[in-house]
């Protein structure tokens, strides 16, 4: 653990302009990143090698060690996006805007991975990648909602207008997710209970493995969220900077040509 104290190069002298970091890394995220790099292989070893196969699921339980942590965490950034959107409408500061944008991005990654690992697990257990199961269906719709939000975020428009519009869509994210979830589960409950096989009792080293994996994914979520936030913040500033530069150039041009 002595390596952790050496990771201070992020505040290297910045050409006399002060000690601003040259990346989105900071001491805290470097420590966090190192911990993840150490613990993730441990989780993989536990999950892929030492864990006993499940009595009911057999080896499919090994997919659970990635699937369940991802799925259990994926709603957090979604909620964060809605909260940040509400706060942006009240405060109108870049921080909330960046938080809404970045957490939607992280949410999309988690929801996407949750869908993929869920489909793979379904292939083993149910014999098919996709069933119109309540959870799968509502998660897929949540994924599409998030893709729409990100498309809005990426849309080349005036930054202020885009932030405003994104905030309103961001606020609708959680209500939409709830409506979708509620209606889809009701719809599926009319047909059959398709979530069979999900309630597995983990015991012994399976529980330990799961706990370690869950912990690793919590750290991953935090690391990704911090970096995504800083990147979103930087891109907001850069966009504004570009605008300032463009205006300055334009004025210089006008001066050079006699101001028209």
């Amino acid at each position, binding site marked *: 653990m002595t390596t952790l104290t050496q990771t201070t190069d992020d505040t290297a002298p910045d050409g006399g302009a002060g000690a601003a970091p040259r990346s989105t890394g900071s001491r805290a995220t470097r420590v966090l990143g190192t911990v993840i790099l150490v613990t993730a292989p441990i989780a993989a070893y536990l999950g892929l090698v030492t864990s006993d196969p499940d009595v009911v699921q057999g080896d499919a339980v090994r997919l659970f060690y990635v699937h369940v942590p991802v799925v259990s965490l994926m709603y957090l950034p979604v909620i964060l996006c809605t909260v940040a959107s509400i706060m942006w*409408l009240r405060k109108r500061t870049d921080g909330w805007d960046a938080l809404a944008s970045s957490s939607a991005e992280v949410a999309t990654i988690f929801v996407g991975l949750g869908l993929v690992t869920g489909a793979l697990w379904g292939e083993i257990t149910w014999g098919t990648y996709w069933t119109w199961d309540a959870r799968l269906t509502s998660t897929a719709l949540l994924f599409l909602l998030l*893709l729409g939000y990100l498309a809005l975020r990426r849309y080349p428009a005036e930054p202020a207008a885009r932030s405003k519009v994104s905030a309103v869509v961001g606020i609708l994210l959680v209500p939409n997710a709830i409506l*979708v979830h509620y209606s889809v589960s009701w719809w599926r409950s009319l047909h059959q209970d398709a979530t069979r096989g999900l309630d597995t009792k983990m015991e012994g080293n399976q529980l330990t493995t799961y706990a370690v994996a869950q912990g690793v994914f919590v750290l991953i979520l935090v690391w990704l969220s911090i970096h995504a936030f800083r990147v979103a913040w930087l891109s907001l500033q850069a966009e504004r900077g570009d605008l300032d530069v463009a205006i300055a150039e334009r004025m210089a041009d006008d001066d050079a040509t006699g101001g028209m």
Partner: protein
Amino acid sequence: MLADARLIAGKDLRIELRSKVGIGQMVPFAVLVLVLFGLALDPDRGVLTRATPGLYWIAVLFSALLAVQRSFAVESAPGVAEALRLSGIDPAGYFLGKFAAVAAQLVVLQLVLVAGVVVLYGADLAGPLLLVATAVAATVAIASAGTLYGVLAAGLRVRDTLVPLLLLPALAPVLLGATRASEAALDGGIGDGWGWCGLLATFGVLYVGFGLLFFGTLLEET
């Protein structure tokens, strides 16, 4: 607020009546969708009859996209946004007016579409009370959400691609609820029909409320 709403809705509907773009393009488009479904799903095998509620509501959803885009294309001419702000129209009234105009067009569209499914798909309209209630609740839901997302995208000067991507996933519960409720009505057994109707109503109330609350924010100058 209500006077402003009436003003805006009246203006939009007058434009539609005079230009005939909505009637001349949206309704034929919806009927075309019905015919295309018929071609895709061999009409002789009874698939069409069984799938009628779903196909009907898909046709309504797609046509509603056109109505929403049209509704805000009308406002996208240069200076209209500024003129609206200057006119001092209440944002909530503006939302209600836009919503009412879209809803009215959807009602006209649905009258044609119902005739269409009866003639083309051989649908048997059982449970009329539930059907009408479903149609009303779903229309409110689609028009309110459509108006909200429509103005969102209009603010960014983009309409054609972003609105469906934002609107359709959000409307998934409406498609589900309207389809199940109509299915229940057509089956004659009411079953969960009124429950689904309740879901549609909840959705509509939520989006209308949201529109009334946030339309001012969306219209303000940036």
